[in-house]
């Protein structure tokens, strides 16, 4: 339940405020009804819920980007003039997820390349063919290349993080300037 609650944080704030509590309630009810099912059915259910939330949240963010008032991408708080601004947690989660997927994809690709080399070898004889591995973590022999690519993405991630922080700081300073602005002089 806590995991589902955490996943709901991926949705834009406005959406969460509107539907979050209700979604949690429905999830609770469906989970309770799933207790009668076997472990496989429960696993399928939880995976389906996870996928639904991930795709749903991504869709909502994309929709918010295309909306006439696109500020919703940063959460509805962006529309209000608050003196304090926090870094968007959704952004951190998405950036980490994207980084993880990219690194895993590279690892998998390297694993497949390694399998192909092993299967078709230098001589290229068909008798030595070894079936391709379907394992998610198929570590390649060439660690150097993998590490350098991973480092590249880590550096990109850090750079994006810093850029985002700067952008949010600038936004905050703008709000502070508004606080200091003089009001229209009163006429007597």
């Amino acid at each position, binding site marked *: 339940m806590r995991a589902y609650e955490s996943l709901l944080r991926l949705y834009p704030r406005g*959406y969460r405020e*509107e*539907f979050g509590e*209700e*979604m949690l*309630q*429905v*999830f609770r*009810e*469906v989970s309770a009804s799933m207790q009668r099912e076997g472990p496989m059915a429960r696993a399928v259910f939880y995976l*389906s*819920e996870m*996928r*639904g*939330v*991930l*795709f*749903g*949240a991504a*869709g*909502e963010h994309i929709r918010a980007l295309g909306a006439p008032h696109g500020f919703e991408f940063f959460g509805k708080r962006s529309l209000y003039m608050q003196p304090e601004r926090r870094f968007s947690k959704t952004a951190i989660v998405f950036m980490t997820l994207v980084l993880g997927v990219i690194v895993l994809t590279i690892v998998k690709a390297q694993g497949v390349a390694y399998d192909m080399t092993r299967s078709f070898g230098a001589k290229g004889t068909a008798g030595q063919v070894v079936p391709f591995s379907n394992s998610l973590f198929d570590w390649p022999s060439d660690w150097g290349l993998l590490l350098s690519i991973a480092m590249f993405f880590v550096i990109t991630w850090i750079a994006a993080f810093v850029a985002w922080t700067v952008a949010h700081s600038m936004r905050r300073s703008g709000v502070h300037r508004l606080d200091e602005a003089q009001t229209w002089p009163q006429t007597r």
Partner: protein
Amino acid sequence: MEPMTESITEPVLLILLSLADQPRHGYAILKDVETMSEGRVRLSTGTLYGALRRLLGEDWIERSVDRDTSRGKQSYRMTSKGRRVLQQEVARMKQLTRLANLRVARKEA
């Protein structure tokens, strides 16, 4: 008749059908969709609420607080606009089915 802005997907059609006869809350919609599709379509809560948000945005459904339950759950009911869209979609499907039957019968003859 009102023109549809976009094609209706099967889950959306099933949600509309679920709300056609009476207002329902989220869990009841999920179960009804599963029953109607004989277990073939099992909506996740993410998919359900994504669809409900779009339907609310199109004014095809509206919210109402379910007074029958002690917790005052939100339930959803179809609007007259939503009903018109559903009727239009059903008419389109009827026409398509009629055409398909004709073509299949002609092929078999």
